[in-house]
């Protein structure tokens, strides 16, 4: 069971880290979400790539019953870069998803699979009770563990 968790080589963010640092880490690590911890490694929540995309989109487009499509909007890459610059220095703490789904060492494998299937990639693995971050688990970790990619 432990084999599916990545407990050695995973990236973490601190609440005071900047959005720019977080964005760079998402790109370098090729992950969809990063755990955010405090000084005692207690999980505060998760910073997601799609939250970053939402910050670059018009706010009303990300709301339920907001504008249903943006086919008529012609913002360019330069416009988006300008928006990125405007938020780059803000701390990730402002954008943390605090009620993020987490898994524990004893979470059954099918439950983890189901969460990943539903799109919650890069789930934090925390210690039951004190929420101390122990590692992460991603769809790739699970696929690797079940033998996908094995050369025969």
């Amino acid at each position, binding site marked *: 069971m432990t084999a599916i968790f990545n407990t050695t080589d995973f990236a973490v963010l601190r609440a005071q880290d900047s959005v720019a640092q977080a964005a760079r880490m998402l790109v370098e690590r090729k992950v969809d979400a990063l755990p955010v911890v405090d000084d005692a490694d207690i999980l505060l929540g998760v910073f997601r790539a799609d939250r970053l995309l939402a910050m670059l989109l018009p706010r009303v487009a990300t709301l339920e019953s907001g504008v*249903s499509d943006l*086919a*008529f*909007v012609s913002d360019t890459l330069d416009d988006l870069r300008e928006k990125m610059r405007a938020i780059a220095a803000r701390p990730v703490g402002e954008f943390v998803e605090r009620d993020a789904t987490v898994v524990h060492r004893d979470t059954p494998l099918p439950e983890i699979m189901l969460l990943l299937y539903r799109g919650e990639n890069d789930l934090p693995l925390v210690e039951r009770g004190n929420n101390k971050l122990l590692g992460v688990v991603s769809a790739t970790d699970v696929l690797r563990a079940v033998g996908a990619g094995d050369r025969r």
Partner: protein
Amino acid sequence: MTHAAHAAFGGDTFWLATALFLGTYAMIVTERVNRAIVALLGGALMILTGVLTQEAALRGVDFNTLGLLIGMMLIVAITKKCGVFQYVAIWSAKKVDARPWPILLMLALITALFSALLDNVTTVLLIVPVTLLITEELKVSPYPYLFATIFASNIGGTATLIGDPPNIMIGSAAGLSFNDFLVNLAPAMAVIFLATLLPIYWIWGRKLVAADADRMRIMHFNEREAITDSMLLKKSLFVLALVVAGFVAHDTLHLQPATVAMTGAALLLLLENFGGDAERQSKNVHHAFAEAEWITIFFFVGLFIAVYGIEQAGLIAWMAESLLHATHGDLASTATAILWGSAILSAFVDNIPFVATMIPLIKSMAPTFGGEAALVPLWWALALGACLGGNGTLIGASANLVVAGFAERTGAPIRFLPYLKAAFPLMLGSIAVCHAYLYWRYL
């Protein structure tokens, strides 16, 4: 006291019906339980306790109001899928070179026009998202735009028979046609609309500034891309045009507005689905029916029964007599009391139950004023007060709450008290205009 009321005071049902009605009203006002549940329970209890028989209860339900509401809801549910509302909003913003104050004027005008023909909540649900998109691109505060949207939707809704549920109820009960509303209320609404924009300009509009680069972004919007289904758009506009023509001619054709709206809905459903396979038809029809606001519809059903209960029990006659006593049976004083009373009450409580109660009350005044024809100024006073009163507070109308909900979720909330400070005096001003208008034209 009338004979009916006198007899009822002594009877069993007067106090029973009064208690049930007050209980229902109190539950609606406190909003602890969904209003449709409360109204249905209130209606059911009127039957279960023997105030009304089931046959009598059904006589109290105004199916013309329900048919008109459902028909229009279905037409809007289909029409909005094709993106026409976003198209119009973007087109109008570009027409004024994306300058912030003229955009506010255009969006307010569009909101008022749409609200006159469609339900106010639907209108703001369609206009507010694109308004927020435009203000974000222009980097201006959305607050004045949303404030103007609330006022424009309630003012536009007041102008026609189909614009606001109180008008639908009043038109149906008093036998007033679409054209009656248009000729009598729309001119006053045009004046009030313009008069409302002046303080909005003074408080916010003159300070609205946008950078050229931000305006250019709006100018680069391609409104044609907002149209998602041009075939459906043509069908929808065709049916909407027919329905509006039907409303204008309904009195001459001896058709009730509900027949016009329901026929329009059936025709648009047919045009949308003709030739499609069974599964697709089923999906489309299901979608259109699911979009109708059943909470509102069932709220009306229960309410009509509850109000009919107190009418049959004699409470309405007693209330009318009390009001006439207070106004010394003078038509002008009665109209004034109805106008101002309904405006102030409607700012704080749902205007639908209030209007449902006032309708039989006003009807019962016919003998005092010399027949039903003499009641017309009172109907206009009720329509103007109940519809425009909704502007006074953030909870005064459902559309206000929808706008506030959007504002909250985009991080620029509209708070109750700051809104009240600007809106309540503005609403009172609009009622003063109505007061003058009623005296000038009818009293």
